[in-house]
């Protein structure tokens, strides 16, 4: 096809979501945050939520997440994002409020906050990015670190006799009555990313419909702290993390299933 002809029929099919800013992110090559940020931005656009979104950001690699989106954000102290989100949503229920947290923020220092926000059934959405380590602080063992996994604080591999086994936070939260949708996805392959996008869309719709608490756990690669290449990180995630943290819906009430 000639250049002129192809220009005439050219159609813009892919662009930056309006909700994503043009700022260059500070994330490492191969990090999952960039992918998850994009999925969030696309979904906010699709559901027309940009004008009324307030995101609550964690302490961790995503601490500056508010720089990467064109909607309002609020920083929270380490682990307290669900509590901050509770305050915002209760005072302004017309806003769309979500937290974005890592596994250290949510599963270690923030254990109390997430359990009680979920137990109270706050009508917020939690995006829980799980890379099985404390990322920002240099790759130490997290509650989600796998048995045998080498980290900077378990250089010989996590020994369950000393340090116990990893916590499946989503399964624990699913035992609570109030949560309406708890699911686990991954971003290690295009197919997985598509499913992750669908889960985020369902969780956001759950809040918009006023149904209650929703949480999407996203397994995410961390080449820098796992000490592997980005490609190896995707493989490690699929082969080692997914068997322990199975993908799929963990709790989904009927009304959410219909969304």
């Amino acid at each position, binding site marked *: 096809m000639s250049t002129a002809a192809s220009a005439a029929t050219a159609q813009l099919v892919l662009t930056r979501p309006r909700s994503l800013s043009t700022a260059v992110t*500070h994330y490492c090559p191969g990090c999952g945050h960039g992918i998850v940020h994009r999925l969030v931005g696309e979904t906010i656009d699709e559901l027309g939520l940009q004008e009324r979104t307030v995101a609550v950001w964690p302490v961790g*690699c995503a601490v500056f997440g508010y720089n990467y989106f064109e909607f309002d954000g609020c920083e929270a102290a380490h682990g307290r994002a669900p509590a901050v989100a509770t305050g915002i949503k209760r005072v302004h229920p017309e806003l769309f409020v979500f937290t974005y947290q890592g596994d250290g923020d949510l599963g270690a220092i923030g254990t109390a906050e997430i359990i009680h926000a979920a137990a109270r059934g706050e009508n917020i959405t939690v995006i829980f990015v799980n890379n099985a380590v404390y*990322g*920002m602080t240099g790759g130490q063992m997290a509650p989600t670190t796998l048995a045998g996994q080498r980290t900077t604080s378990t250089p010989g591999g996590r020994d369950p006799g000393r340090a116990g086994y990893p916590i499946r936070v989503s399964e624990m939260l699913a035992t609570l009555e109030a949560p309406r949708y708890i699911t686990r996805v991954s971003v290690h392959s295009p197919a997985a990313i598509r499913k992750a996008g669908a889960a985020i869309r369902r969780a956001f719709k759950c809040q918009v419909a006023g149904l209650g608490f929703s949480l999407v756990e996203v397994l995410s690669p961390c080449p820098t702290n796992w000490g592997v290449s980005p490609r190896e990180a995707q493989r490690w995630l699929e082969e080692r993390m997914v068997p322990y943290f199975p993908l799929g819906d963990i709790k989904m009430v009927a009304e959410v299933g219909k969304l």
Partner: protein
Amino acid sequence: MEKDHEIIIAGFGGQGVLFAGMLLAHAALRIGRNVAWIPSYGPEMRGGTAGCTVILSHEEVGSPIISRPSAAIVMNEPSLAKYGPKVKEGGVLVVNRSLAKAPFSRNDIQVLEVPANEIAMEVGSDRAANMVALGALLRATEALPLDVVEEVMPEALGADKARFVTPNVEALRRGARLAETLLSPAAR
């Protein structure tokens, strides 16, 4: 007797800014000087800003926090903008002109313009740019003897990085030699 110094070394994550300060600290300990080293860096695992303060003193160091350094190394442009103006009158500023290209001048301090990355490449890798800048700083301030800094290089690097001892020492010396040529007659 060498003067006391409050030194700031700043750049981006990965330039070896923290290591350069730690090397000074090791050298100071070797000759029995009181020393404080405190790092400062952002959340980024790669890149971002990085800096450290090194206080070399003949008395006990009461606080690692300083507001105006007696000498500074700035390895990139944001660091030049931030710390260039803060150096005390009569002090020394080493500017890595390979990366910090913005115009900067003060006539109340000694400004040494060092193409640290290029000189480091001659030694074998631009990762040694921090050592070039440090060598220049040491020659200009005489804060610590260069040979003591060279002597503690293996211990500061650690056994697993022993292969960097020789290139680092060479880079230190090149920086010192360049400073020699740059220093105004009054300072020599």
